[in-house]
C-alpha cells in the first residue's frame, strides 16, 4: 500500500521529527523495522470486538502474516495491547495495571466504538468508560462495531507507520508528553 492510500497522514506528519542526524536515522530504521514487524499483542479481549480480533488471527485473515500471531498472555512479553471491547469502570484499573505492567515500548490500539468512545453504551450507561484514552494513552483508533478483520489489519498497518516515525530520542519524550496531557 502506498502512503497516500492511508488516512490521517496529517497526524503522522506532526509526529515526524525533522533534523535527526543520519547515523541515528539508520539505526532508527533498523530498530523500527524490528519493532514494527514483530508486534506481539496481549491476549486481551473483553467482548464482541475480541471475537473479531480472534477472527483476524484465523486462517481467513491471518494476523501471522504480519508476524503478530504470537499472542502473549503475559503483559511482560507483549508489545501492543489491542483494547477490543467495552471497558467498564470496574475493569479500568485492571486495564491500567496491565498497561503499566507491559514492558517498554508499548502501544495501544483502541478497537471498536466501545474502546474509542463507549460506542453503543455512550448514552445512559452508568458504568461504561467513555473511551479508553481516559485510562491509557492510545496510539491508533480503529472504529467499527465491531471493525471487520481487514479494518483491524488496516489499523495495525497504521500502527506500523506510526512506529516508523519514532526515533530513539523521541520515544521517551512522546510518552512523557502524553502522561502530562493526561494529568491535566
Amino acid at each position: 500500500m502506498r502512503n497516500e492510500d492511508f488516512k490521517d497522514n496529517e497526524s503522522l506528519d506532526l509526529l515526524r521529527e525533522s533534523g535527526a542526524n543520519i547515523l541515528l536515522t539508520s539505526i532508527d530504521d533498523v530498530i523500527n523495522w524490528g519493532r514494527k514487524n514483530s508486534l506481539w499483542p496481549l491476549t486481551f479481549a473483553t467482548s464482541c470486538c475480541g471475537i473479531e480480533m480472534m477472527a483476524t488471527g484465523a486462517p481467513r485473515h491471518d494476523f501471522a502474516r504480519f508476524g503478530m500471531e504470537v499472542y502473549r498472555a503475559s503483559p511482560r512479553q507483549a508489545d501492543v495491547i489491542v483494547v477490543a471491547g467495552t471497558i467498564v469502570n470496574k475493569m479500568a484499573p485492571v486495564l491500567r495495571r496491565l498497561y503499566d505492567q507491559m514492558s517498554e515500548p508499548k502501544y495501544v490500539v483502541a478497537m471498536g466504538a466501545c474502546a474509542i468512545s463507549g460506542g453503543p453504551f455512550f448514552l445512559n450507561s452508568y458504568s461504561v468508560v467513555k473511551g479508553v484514552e481516559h485510562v491509557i494513552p492510545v496510539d491508533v483508533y480503529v472504529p467499527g462495531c465491531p471493525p471487520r478483520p481487514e479494518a483491524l489489519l488496516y489499523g495495525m498497518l497504521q500502527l506500523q507507520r506510526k512506529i516508523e516515525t519514532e526515533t530513539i530520542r523521541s520515544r521517551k519524550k512522546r510518552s512523557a508528553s502524553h502522561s502530562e496531557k493526561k494529568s491535566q
Partner: protein
Amino acid sequence: MACFLREPNSDLMSNEWLVLFFLVGAIFVGLVLILSGIIAPRSVNPQKFEPYESGIPTKGVTWLQFNVGYYLFAILFLVFDVETVLVFPWAVVMKEVGLTAFIEIVIFFLILGLGLLYAWKKDALVWE
C-alpha cells in the same frame, strides 16, 4: 577425544573444550543481557514491578502449598535415575558378555520392577 580441529585421541583432554562451551554460553547470555540492558528503553511506574496475576493485585503469599504429588515423583525419579546410570555400562557390554549379562539384568530389573509394582499398588504413581 576429537574436536573439529583436533585429531582423535590427541593428548589434549576434552575438559577444556567442555569449559569452552560453558564459557561461550555464559558470555553469550551475559553480553546480550548487558547489551539489551543498555539499549532498551525504560519506564517507571509503581504498578509495573508487582507480580502479574491477570491484572489483579496478588492476594496472599506466593508459594505452593504442600503437595505430595510433586516430590514423591522426584524421589521415585532419583531411584530410577540411579538405576539407569548403572544400566548404561551394562548396556555397552551386553553384546560381548552375553548370557551372564542377560541374567544379571533380568534379576536387576525384577528387583526394581518389584519396587515399581509396590509403588503402583500403593498408588504412589497417581498424582494427587
